[in-house]
């Protein structure tokens, strides 16, 4: 129960930043379609489904890392601890120090989106969701480490699924559009919340690291 909540909390604390960063991809499409709230929810659902696939792919990769590298290693605590500390430091930097950028717009090719919306509009929400889900930002790297530390494939998938649920919570508001002018603020708060969670992971990682060193 705790493990799933861990991923959920990490996701929820990053939800604001995720939503504010990925909305520029989804929002113009929603506005362009303009078919009403029910239709907007359907499109957002497709977008989120795409993201979920992206995340589950990460979970699978994390599990492969676990079986290939970590499981047989005597330095399991040490490796996970170092990863936690590094990614937590990255998350703190991302949350408090990194200058604002356009988030997913950087990692996702805008031209590709434009082509996709023109040529295959029906595929757009799912594909866009999938591609934005495969974004190597600090929260995802931390979630990846968390998933790699799980004891089974199911647990890794559950970890990323709960992370997905957390990051998706604020997407419920997106089809209502009305909050769009507060994106900048939501993004700042979301990033700072992610930075604060980074301190928690820094603590967890340091404890694991100390345990790993003690075992050597």
């Amino acid at each position, binding site marked *: 129960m705790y493990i799933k909540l861990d991923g959920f909390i990490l996701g929820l604390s990053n939800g604001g930043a995720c939503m504010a960063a990925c909305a520029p991809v989804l929002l113009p499409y929603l506005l362009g379609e303009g078919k009403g709230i029910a239709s907007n929810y359907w499109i957002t659902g497709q977008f989120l489904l795409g993201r979920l696939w992206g995340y589950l792919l990460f979970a699978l990769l994390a599990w492969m890392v676990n079986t290939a590298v970590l499981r047989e290693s005597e330095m399991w605590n040490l490796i996970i601890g170092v990863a936690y500390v590094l990614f937590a430091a990255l998350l703190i930097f991302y949350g408090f120090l990194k200058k604002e950028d356009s988030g997913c717009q950087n990692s996702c090719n805008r031209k590709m989106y434009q082509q996709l919306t023109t040529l295959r509009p029906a595929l757009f929400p799912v594909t866009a969701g999938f591609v934005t889900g495969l974004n190597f930002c600090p929260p995802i790297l931390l979630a990846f480490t968390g998933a790699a530390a799980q004891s089974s494939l199911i647990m890794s998938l559950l970890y990323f699924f709960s992370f997905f649920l957390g990051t998706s919570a604020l997407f419920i508001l997106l089809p209502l559009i009305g909050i769009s002018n507060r994106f900048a603020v939501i993004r700042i*708060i979301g990033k700072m919340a992610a930075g604060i969670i980074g301190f928690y992971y820094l603590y967890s990682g340091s404890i694991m690291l100390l345990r790993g060193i003690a075992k050597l």
Partner: protein
Amino acid sequence: MNINKSAAAPVNNKPGLFKTLLLCLPMMTVTLLMLSHGQRPEEPALLIAFVLTFAFINTIFFFMIYTGETDRWRSILFIVYSFCFILSFITNLIEVRGSMAISEANMIEGLTPFCHIVIPMTLIPLAITKTIIFPGTIIGANASIAGMFVLWIGTSLALGRGFCSWFCFFGGMDEGFSRLFRKARIKNIDRKWTYLPYALLLVIVLASAAALAPFYCEWLCPFKTVTEYQEITSIKTALQAMIFVSLFIALVMILPALTERRIQCGLFCPFGAFQSWTNKINVFDVRIDPAKCIKCYKCVQICPSFSLSEDTIAKGKTATTCMKCGKCIDACKQHAIVYHIKGTPLNEGKVEIARRLFIYPAFIFLATMAGGVVQDAIVKIIKLVTTGSMI
């Protein structure tokens, strides 16, 4: 700079001596009953404390009415109240427990005093599990959970985020240190940090709901340094204590002194962020008259909670984080900033009425909270002088 001379003319809000005394009579009656509990204190120390506290509180209120200045006088009582609170609280803890540290046994018995900062963390678990996630007592005890909830609801309805400048027993420490120097050493603070309390609120509410424990109290509360803390029995509790002390020194002492702002209240306190929303339902706000404002932005530079900016001034109002301390109102030489009752026009003749309608309830809350602790602190000081010990 374009100065509208007619608008800049000072407004005479000051009543005469007799009218001031008349206006102070209700407050004197209320504080007399409140401090004495309807009885003449028997012990000499209690009697001295009662007389001194009564005189102090009512002198402050007298000058608040007589001079037409709010923050100048409020801040004196607010700061004294806060430091007396620490003195009274710590000595009481040592009297009862023998130490400032709270043991696990004490927590299991529900002997931890409840403070308002915990409130936002309790709401989700309360809704889901019907349980208060705090090792305190619901009713009957000192600083009980129900008592604090009732006080919080009442103050929030009456004052909104004015709570933070007229009620909070921690705010005065921050304010005290912010007034140590005459000039701010650090002036330019990136406004993005004003969102940190909201981010912190989001994290502590979620983490507390997930762990079913008050996360902020366990890890981040700077005021644990001057109230109580969990007994140090492990590396974890030692780390927690280090965090409390570091945050207190940085956020309550050093940064307020260097910036002349209430850094802990304005840039860190998650309860403050939560409380900001109550400004939406409160009838009082602080407004800026654009016709009188000469855009000198002095108010922006001195606002302790970063609630004023060029943008908010252009809109004629403060941000929702306004603590209604009155510092900007006192500082504005154009009298462009005023206390205001929502839904009423910014009428010159009604400005002082709106101010008085705000400061009566606000001061009653402050006097109610401050009266008891100031009296108790005076008794403790008399004890120290006469017996050599406060306990």
